C-alpha cells in the first residue's frame, strides 16, 4: 500500500493526523496488509464467522 493510499484512507476517515506521523503510519501499513492476507484462506462459501446473533429466548 503506497503512502498516498494510506493518506487517502486517513483523510477519508476524517482523521486530522499530524504531518510528522503520516509517513510513520504509512510505513506500518504493511502489518495490516500481511495480517489481512493471512486471514484469506481457501474456505467454503458457507464457513460461518465466530459471531452470529443468537435469537432471543421465547418469552
Amino acid at each position, binding site marked *: 500500500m503506497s503512502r498516498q493510499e494510506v493518506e487517502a484512507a486517513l483523510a477519508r476517515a476524517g482523521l486530522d493526523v499530524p504531518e510528522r*506521523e503520516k509517513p510513520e503510519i504509512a510505513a506500518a501499513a504493511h502489518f495490516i496488509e500481511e*495480517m489481512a492476507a493471512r486471514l484469506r484462506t481457501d474456505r467454503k462459501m458457507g464457513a460461518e*464467522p*465466530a459471531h452470529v446473533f443468537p435469537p432471543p429466548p421465547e418469552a
Partner: protein
Amino acid sequence: MVPEFLTIAEAGALIGKRELSPVELVESRLARIEQIDGKLNSFIRLLGDQALAAARSAEAEIMAGHYRGPMHRIPIGLKDIYETRGVPTTGHSKVLLDQVPQRDATSVRRLAEAGAIVMGKLATHEFAFGGPSFDLPWPPARNPWDTSRFTGGSSSGTGAAVAAGLVLGGTGSDTGGSIRGPAAFCGLAGLKPSYGRISRAGILPLAFSLDHAGPMTWTAEDCAIMLQAMAGYDAADPASANRPVPDYRAALSSDVKGLKIGLVRQFYETDNPANEPTQRGVAGAVKVLEELGCSVRELRLSPLADWAACGIIIMLSEGYAIHEATLREKFVDYGEAFRDRMALATLITGGDYVQALRRRRELAAELAAAMADLDLVMTAAAPSEAPPIDAVGKFAIFERPSLTMPFNVCGTPAMSVCCGYTEESLPLAFQLAGRPFDEATVLKAAHAYERATPWRSIRPRFV
C-alpha cells in the same frame, strides 16, 4: 511491624488471628506507596483517606464478628479503566480526564461487597492499548525489578504495584495479553479467565469480543481468592456466562497427578522465538510439572501469526468503532501510540473483519479439538524478560506475533506463571491455558508449580 510483602492469603490469616489490624495494613501500604511509587508511577490516583476509612470500618466489623471472606480488609488497586462511582476513571487519557462515573463496574462492586479496600486507581496503557507513552497526563509505570525496564502492558500499573507490594492484588484487563504480559514481566500470577466469567460491565472497552477482566496477584492462590470475588453472571454484560462458579480455592488442594498437558513448543521456538533464558525457564517448568505427576506431550497448532492476525484485525476493528467519533473530533488529544496504532484500522475493510471472524471460528474449533484429550495447554508467556522501556516502539505490538493472543481469540482461561529469573533478576514466565470455564484446573496446576519451586519467595528489592 507489618512485613514489606504479604500475599492476600497471608494477610487474611494474620488479620483472622488478630495479629494484624486492617488499619495497620492499609497504613503500611500507604507508607510504602509514599516511599516507593515516585519511582514506579503505578498509581495515577491515590485514595488514601477513603482506604483508611474503609479499613477502620473493616476493623469495627471484625470486632463485631462479621467476616465476609478472604478478600475482607485486603488492600487492592484498580486499573483505571474500571469505573468507580464518584472517582474519576480516565483510561489514563486526556480524552476522559474529567469523567466521573455514576456507578461502580460490576466487578468493583463485587470486590467491595467481598470487603476489599480500594487504595486507588492504577496506571494503564491509554485505553488499555496505547503505550508505553510519555505524552499522556501521567507517566508510564515502571518495572519494580529494574525501573529502566518495561512493565508490559496494558495493565502496567497493576503489574508494578502488586510486584512492589504496594497493594496485595489488583485488577487487570486482557484483550490480547494485557494481564499476562505485565504479570510475566513483573513476576506475578495473572489470570485471564474465560470470556464471560467476569462481567465487563462498567469497564472501558477496547474490543468487545476479546476483552476479559481478571485478577493480578503474587500467587495462584491469591488469584483464586480474587477470582472468587469477581466472577459470576451479570445481566448487565451481554456476554456474561450464566454458569455456576466453583470454589476455586478449594480446588487448589486436589492432586495434579495425571493431568495431561499439551506443550506448544512451536510458538516460542520458531513462530516467535524466545530467548535462551525464557526457553530454559519453560523447559524447567515442564520438568517440575512432570515430577509432580503431570504428563506433558508436544502439541502443534496453526502458526502463531494466524492467531495474532485474527486477534489484531478484530481488536483494531472493534476498538476503532468505539473511538471513531472522538478520533475524528480530537485526534491529537490521544497519545501518539494510541492514535497512530488505531489509525491503522482505517486500512481494514469490512471484508477483512469478517474473514477474521471466520478464522476465529476455525481456530477455536482447532483448539477445542486439540484439548479433547488434554487438561491444559502450556507455552511461553513472553519471548524474553522485560525489555528497556525506551526500546518499545510505537508499532511493536505488530512486529512479532503475540504468545498470549491465541487464548483471547478462543476465550479460554489462561494464566502467566513465574518460572524463574534471569541473571539480572528479571522475571521469566510460562502460560497455562485450560478448557473453557475450567479456571480451577489452571489455578491448581499453577499453585502446585509455585509450591514446588522457590520463585514466590523472591521479591524485588529497592535501594
